[in-house]
């Protein structure tokens, strides 16, 4: 029974990753899944009815709605609302015929269809059930459950759902489960919500709002803030200063070189400015560089995971987090 010797896995065991659309939430969820699995924690990463980015990123076939072990200690699932409903229904009703009788009924089907938010609730509920899922011996099946949560805006509503249901439904199963879910979501010993943002102008403001709403308004424990896809600067500092002094060239060849380089330098320096603002939000920071490849593959994920782990290490090189950026000078 080697399991008896298992070290307790450090908190949190329920991890959600959120941020605006397109900022790399799935990438961060994939990295966290890898790091967690490598630390020896039995880890499940959940996507919610998505086009499944995580499995392909890690070099695996898409897994679909079934929990699938893809490597040591790491399983993936793409939770589907229909399957979640069936699973929940069967758990409560126990008889498939009864489930069919109810949910194949057109009145009920249209009622389910008509209630907004039903799908999100079902998917969150399923992820929640994975958190408390037990193996045959009654021990938790997962040491850690990581959720690639919906984009912000949609995401705030998503996080608020259990509380809404808890308050709207006065008693019974649904009330109890919503209350349990809410208790989990707001428990800093078990849960952390990590935020992902790009070093761009508007995301800074949005992340500030998101932090205020999640932590302030909802009381949900926040983990760290990932500043993702930080573009590299084209010059080391001294050459950058020389470049900045260059007037718009009259030579057409130099003008083209200057145009191309200026776009990149402009974006890098804007990004640095916004990264500074993000660092000032008061959350632990993880910074990830923009990868050169257009489509992130396993090698890219592994490289980012190594950088991520370095920054998370308690005695890692984070003392200078306020100043340093992983910008690579190319010169």
């Amino acid at each position, binding site marked *: 029974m080697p399991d008896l010797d298992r070290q307790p896995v450090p908190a949190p065991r329920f991890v959600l990753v959120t941020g*605006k*659309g*397109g*900022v790399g939430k799935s990438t961060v969820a994939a990295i966290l899944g890898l790091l967690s699995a490598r630390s020896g924690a039995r880890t499940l990463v959940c996507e919610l009815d998505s086009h499944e*980015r995580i499995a392909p990123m890690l070099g695996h076939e898409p897994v679909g709605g079934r929990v699938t072990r893809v490597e040591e200690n790491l399983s993936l699932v793409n939770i589907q609302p229909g399957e979640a409903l069936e699973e929940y229904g069967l758990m409560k*009703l126990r008889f498939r015929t*009864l489930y069919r*009788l*109810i949910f194949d*009924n*057109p*009145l009920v089907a*249209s009622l389910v*269809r*008509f209630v*907004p*938010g039903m*799908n*999100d609730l079902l998917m969150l509920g399923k992820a929640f059930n994975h958190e408390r899922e037990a193996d045959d011996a009654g021990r938790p099946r997962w040491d850690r459950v990581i959720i690639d949560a919906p*984009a912000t*805006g*949609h995401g705030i*509503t998503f996080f*608020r*759902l259990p509380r*809404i249901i808890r308050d*709207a*439904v*006065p*008693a*019974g*199963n*649904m009330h109890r489960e919503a209350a349990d879910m809410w208790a989990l979501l707001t428990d800093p010993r078990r849960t952390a919500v990590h935020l992902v943002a790009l070093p761009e102008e*508007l995301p800074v*403001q*949005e992340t500030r709002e998101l932090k205020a709403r999640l932590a302030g308004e909802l009381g949900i424990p926040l983990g760290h803030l990932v500043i993702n896809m930080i573009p590299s600067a*084209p*010059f080391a500092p*001294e*050459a950058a200063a*020389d*470049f900045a*002094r*260059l007037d*718009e*060239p*009259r030579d057409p*060849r*130099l003008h*083209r*070189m200057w145009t*191309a*380089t200026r*776009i*990149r330098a*402009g*974006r890098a320096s804007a990004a640095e400015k916004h990264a500074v603002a993000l660092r000032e939000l008061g959350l632990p920071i993880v910074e990830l560089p923009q990868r050169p490849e*257009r*489509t992130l593959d396993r090698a890219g994920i592994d490289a980012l995971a190594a950088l991520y782990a370095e920054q998370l290490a308690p005695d890692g090189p984070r003392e200078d987090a306020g100043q340093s950026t992983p910008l690579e000078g190319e*010169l």
Partner: protein
Amino acid sequence: MSAPFDEELRRARLLVTAGSGGVGKTTTAAAMAVRAATLGRRAAVLTIDPARRLADALGLGELTGELRRVEPRHFTETGLTADGELWAMMLDVKTTGDQMVRRFAPDARTAQTILDNAYYQYFSTSLAGAQEYVAIEQVRALIDEGGFDLVILDTPPAAHAIDFLDAPDRLVSGLGSRAVQMLRTDGDDAGFGARLTRGGRGLILRGLNKLTGGPFIEELTRFLAVFGSIIDALQASGEAVKARLRADDTRFFLVTSPTRSNVDEAVRFRGQLTERGFPLGGVILNRAHVPLAAVHDGPDSRAELDAALIDGGLADVPADRRARVLDGLFAGLDRHNALADSDILASDLLKRATGRRPWRIPLFAHEIRDLGDLDRVARELRPVEGMSSAPDDV
């Protein structure tokens, strides 16, 4: 000076920007609206992105659920002249939901009963999906009653955009469904529950109650019964928007960045749009690297370029540091063109998948800050052919 996209802005009454998260949909929508106003149109841009992204660039401070006009001085301050008007708003679910109930309820008392109901809160403020229902009314009202020449609708990221765009169809079919029809015929409190209890259906209601373990279903159906009183009006509105989204002067523009996953998603999304009969105006490749002619790297050209650096203000910089700047400039151009190549690949993929040539917006050196930048985005919006490489230097 006219720009290639102006024709679209003059012709359309509804433009819808759609695409994955983070590709610049909202910015594109705002840019179109700014340009339309400078072309003399009375334009409104409606974003449902709760992140209030538009406000900054539009100079509105904050976007609210109220339609607000961008003051003409913001145009003149950035050297633009707006013969038309620019209005903007963010869809505020709570406000529009309340407005909708007040508007469609048969009388004030019914409206208040609905607004006070706990499940109305559940519907209108909190649940994902409710936005879609209330957005319907907002879009329709802007077009039919707002007196706007052009409404530009920014949609949620692709995964949710289909939900959003399906909302009119879903609402119409949902409202026409048997369950809801029944609410209307017997508006009494127990209507739906009673129907479910009747005949062999007692089992169903008991099963449902077992699922929820409480009076949830009865409570919900009681709400739906009251809500049922506004259904006719809502359904008519849903029908109107359904038709509006497919009208001759409606155009959908898919916005994508050149990354592979976003391009793939755009292609997939395009299929979903055409399946539903939404008129596709085109695909816009945002933040595209426009190819720049290569520069020969050799002793002679280096010497000439170094002279140009000196001419450009680096005379007092030591030669070795100028050489380093030049190295960086060569690398910058190479890298830019490598990205431009991969962007052309992306645009070819889009062209093949959609059967028409994409539009593109070039990557700018600085971020969008004001109306002038937004106007520039719309003016730089060109068919991709304009991207083809300039001939190499002699």
